């Protein structure tokens, strides 16, 4: 790369670094604020005295969370759906993307299947009939209601495009050796597509972890809510104008610090897996970022 040393360049570099540093801090600031509130005692939080550093530092909010069976249960449900959901959706995505990555000549009917898949992106029947399907299969209030649809057309398209970049010679050699499609897929395609698959795993995991709407709809008993849905009832939906209030609820509402701690807990798993997966982003996303 070219490098020149004149003052305009240096000025630009300084400005650019400072500016981007500023943006990076801006992206982080709300989370730090949240963390600081969650580590402050409730009086300081309620008084609005906390900015980026805890005031009257305490772990009491996190201790309360650990002791709350409701949050604990919701957390476990979320973990379960994320692990199961990610595994199932990855498996389905891989075995769907492989046949579709063949040309229509190699795999007869491929274009019809492709359209069947893509049409689901463009059109859907609506929530009520979908709810009725889930109900009649007996999936309401089970973790499967949150997992079953399983495969996302976008992930399939991304992986399919990735598979198409695998050199043909490798596959042909394998087939000549007598390997089946199944073996080719797992011994050649999958190992060569690790970045894409890692990215898809991240997407699926994040999606499952963050999903709240399906929990609200398909869990008719709110003891089965996943964490984000539970969080929503605690953090956002307390705007209860007409419901009859009682002293319990009224006294509970002033817990700004505790709410902050709950929100923070809901972000922790994301923060934990993020560093492991971020190195695959750029390669994995090239083809898929359009609709990531």
């Amino acid at each position, binding site marked *: 790369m070219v490098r020149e040393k004149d003052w305009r360049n240096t000025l630009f570099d300084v400005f650019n670094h400072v500016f981007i540093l500023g943006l990076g801090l801006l992206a982080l600031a709300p989370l730090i604020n949240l963390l600081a509130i969650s580590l402050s005692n*409730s*009086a300081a939080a*309620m*008084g*609005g005295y906390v900015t980026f550093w805890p005031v009257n530092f305490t772990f*009491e909010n996190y201790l*309360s969370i650990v*002791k*709350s*069976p*409701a949050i604990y249960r919701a957390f476990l449900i979320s973990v379960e759906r994320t692990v199961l959901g990610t595994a199932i959706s990855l498996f389905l995505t891989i075995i769907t993307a492989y046949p579709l990555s063949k040309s229509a000549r190699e795999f007869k009917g491929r274009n019809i299947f492709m359209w069947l898949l893509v049409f689901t992106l463009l059109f859907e029947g609506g929530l*009520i009939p979908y*709810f*009725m399907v889930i*109900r009649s299969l007996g999936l309401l209030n089970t973790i499967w209601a949150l997992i079953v649809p399983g495969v996302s057309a976008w992930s399939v398209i991304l992986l399919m495009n990735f598979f198409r970049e695998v050199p043909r010679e490798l596959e042909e050699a394998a087939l000549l050796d007598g390997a089946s499609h199944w073996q080719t897929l797992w011994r050649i395609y999958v190992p060569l597509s690790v970045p894409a698959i890692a990215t898809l795993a991240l997407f699926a995991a994040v999606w499952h972890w963050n999903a709240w709407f399906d929990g*609200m*709809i398909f869990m*008719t*008993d*709110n*003891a089965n*809510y996943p964490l984000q849905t*539970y969080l929503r*009832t*605690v953090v956002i*939906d*307390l*705007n*209860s*104008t*007409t*419901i*009859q*209030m*009682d*002293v*319990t*609820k*009224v*006294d*509970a*509402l*002033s*817990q*700004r610090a*505790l709410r902050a701690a709950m929100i923070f807990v809901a972000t922790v798993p994301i923060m934990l897996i993020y560093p492991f997966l971020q190195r695959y982003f750029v390669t994995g996303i090239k083809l898929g970022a359009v609709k990531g």
Partner: protein
Amino acid sequence: MLTHKLRRRDFLRLTGVAGGAALLAACLPPAGPAEPAGSSAPAVALPATRNAEELLKAAGVPLPGSPNHPKGWRTLLPDVPEGYPLAQRITITTARPTDSEVVFPPGDDLDNNVWTRMIATLFGIQFVNKMTWVEGDEQAQKYNLAMASNDLADIMQDVPANIFAQMVEADMLLELGPIWDQYASPKWKDAVARGGASAWRGCTINGKRYAIPHAQSAGHDDAILWVRKDWLDRLGLNPPETWQDVHDVAVAFAQAKLGGPDTYGLLANKDFRKSWYGSLDPLWTGYGIVPNWTSFGWSEDANGNLRYDGVRPEVKEVLAILRQWYADGVFRKDFYAIGPDELTPDLASGRCGLQFNPVWGANRDSIQNTGAEWLFLDVPAGPKGRFKHTDDPWNNGRFCCPKNFQYAKEWIEMTNWRIELEEAVGTRMHGWEGIDYAINEQGEYEDLDPYYSFWTVGPIGTRTGGVIDPHFEAEELNHNLEAWGRLAPAERDAFQAAMFGDPVLELRNRAKAFILQKNSTQGVSDKFTGLPTPTMLSVWSDLIDQESEVCLSIITGQKSMEAFDAYVANWKANGGEQITAEVNEWWQKVK
């Protein structure tokens, strides 16, 4: 949500009773009857198998009460009705509100806890929860989906009115009225009969009763004026008596910044009509306007017709006052965007010195953390008199059942029994030791977090606190004040003694007694308690949105007073007149 938790019963059942003694002593009837020995147990001589205590003991199910503790008490369980426990255990599914913070002992849940085990043993009825919700939108959405997919629970609590109407139209509901007539106990029927026409209004469609009313205690959410006595003293002010005083005191509080830089005068939020936290309703009612929770109410005009109060010219008078107050700094600057639930920090951290609230105006955090001294006062009088909003205790919701539900009789008979246990003075039903309360080594009563009543199946109890007789709370309060007040401190059992300890509870108790006393003379209610009319279903929410928007904009000075006239004209043209006609059609039928 997990700390300094005060339970509803703090004032509903136990402490509501205590401090009011002094206040109420004068107006109390002479000593009530002594504790009735067997409650109102059936008069027939009974076979041993219908004795509830023996049944529970035989099944190894714990009894409520603490009969063996020296400072304990005995809960008087009525005998179970004839035919129970059922030879064949039945299962009934339920849909009801819950609360993610309701804590069960380990291993227990909503379907399996002390209360369900007692009912299963005594009645052979197993309740299985099918659907729960926490807040309003969730409730409507879940009933909606259940209806759309025709998958209803057996006992459905508080089905929203519009969904109830649609369920009836779709012929999905059981006509409960005749079954109730046949099996409800005389006591239940008396309570409903005292409710008059309004009791069945929300349950009746085309003359048929498809639901059983869900009553709540009268005066539960009535507001009184709370003021920081310590701030008044510091500024040398007198307690406010008129609306002008309220304004002046509020401005003085705000300017003196007694609670820090963010101090303001009077608690208010975007629910500017009636709110459960920081209400403005006494001002509206003082000017002859009936406010309600999400809209204004309907009142009767001189010709006996209903009119919508939100478009009457008096609204402008109140808006002008509120606009002036806002400009003078009486309210929090952003009150119009703040929900009631976001306001507790303002009290807790001592930012605000005046509030219209029920008993929770005695904010524990502010008292304990900021040294607040709260004084409660009667609401000021407006030009039309001294009034406040009150909820019609019968306009609280409904219980309904799907068409194919077979056990309505059993449910009603179980409730008959519960009335004798839980809505009878002197049965001493305070829950289970080790679950609801503990008695410590000093013989003191201690509240534990869970409360069985939250787990029950209505109409009594549940998370939203149903009752059969809306006036039972006042009756029990009067009785206990009288009967327990006469006991020497040493004679009181742990539960009775607990009512005379905590100053915050005592303050709340005094306030509760005061509120109940004023309820009948000052409370005004929305006269329209019917189901939404057809035009309401299609345009009401739009009209209400516009109403809120225009009123809040006028109060905050973003729009001129004239905007209100334009709104009224628009209201009339876009469905308001049609709705008025429909509401009056209903009114002619029920009044």
